[in-house]
């Protein structure tokens, strides 16, 4: 008659947890590197046009953003493209004070190097974009970058 063998011979050895800290550190580093903190919440739809001849924005701290696109909440704000500066909708007239404010926030030596990144939805008409560019010219923010996604 077969007997069930007793005893601790079949015990599964405990998995070593000694490397747990390493794994956790790895995850931490990974997320630290890949997360890009977004400072503003987008209130406009953003589908950037594609381009191949792109350059990277070098100094992130020296970039200010202007968003243009149709509002996300179409029921409340309609579908007409709107301008967003910081966290709220703005009008064309608000660009000059905005640029002045952005300049004041930077160190004096860096003010001339301030780049304005235009993040514009691809379906926006050029009329609005031209108006924005004219305002930027007026206040001397000549360095601009048309933000695009890479690809054909």
């Amino acid at each position, binding site marked *: 008659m077969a007997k069930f063998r007793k*005893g601790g*011979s079949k015990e*599964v*050895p405990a*998995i*070593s947890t*000694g*490397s747990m800290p*390493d*794994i956790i*550190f*790895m995850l931490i*580093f*990974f997320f630290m*590197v*890949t997360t*890009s903190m977004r400072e503003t919440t987008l209130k406009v739809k953003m589908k950037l*046009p*594609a*381009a*191949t*001849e*792109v*350059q*990277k*924005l070098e100094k*992130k701290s020296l*970039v200010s953003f202007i968003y243009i696109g149709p509002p996300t909440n179409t029921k409340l704000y309609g579908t007409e493209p709107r301008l967003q500066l910081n966290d709220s909708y703005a009008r064309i007239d608000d660009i000059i004070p905005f640029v002045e404010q952005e300049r004041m926030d930077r160190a004096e030596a860096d003010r001339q190097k301030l*780049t304005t*990144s*235009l993040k*514009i*939805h*691809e*379906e*926006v*008409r*050029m*009329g609005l*974009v*031209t108006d924005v*560019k*004219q305002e*930027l*010219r*007026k206040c*001397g*923010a*000549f*360095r*601009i*970058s*048309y*933000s*695009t*996604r*890479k690809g054909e």
Partner: protein
Amino acid sequence: MARKKKKVPEINASSMADISFLLLIFFLVTTTMDTDSGIFRRLPPPVENPDMDVKVKERNILNVMINKYDKLMVNGKPCDIADLKDKTRDFITPKPNDEKAPEVEVKEIDMIGNFMTNKGVVSLKNDRGTSYQMYIAVQNELAKAFNELREEVAMTYFKQHYNDMTDKDKVDAVNKAVPVRISEAEPEEIK
């Protein structure tokens, strides 16, 4: 016969740290941070006398117009966006013996020496109704033409790809040899 106790050997965990570091480095290398990229342009300063037109010889201008239906016109003729790069490329290549091509000017540039630069200007006009997508597509094609020429100069003078050049002086020299001259007209309506 006494049977020996069968023991599963404990897995050696000392190499775990190495493996995790390896993974960490792998991800560090492969993940691209969500960096912003775009097409850089420099806006011209505001015009003080809007009535005063700057006279530029006709041979030095390449007229690019986009109407509100996103149709392209180059030097008065309808043009497909696919041909724009070649046309621009042809326009900005210095051709000293061609009467119709833009004028050339011999400039002395550090690290290159005397170099024939082209005095041609690409004039870009768009309607208020042009879509931003089309505008960027055109800007992209123009940039492509300039980059191609820069690549050529970089290859002949420095034996290096333009995009791989790290020496700032060399990049400046090439940029000086092939300046991006895109002039955008004051906004107006185009039919």
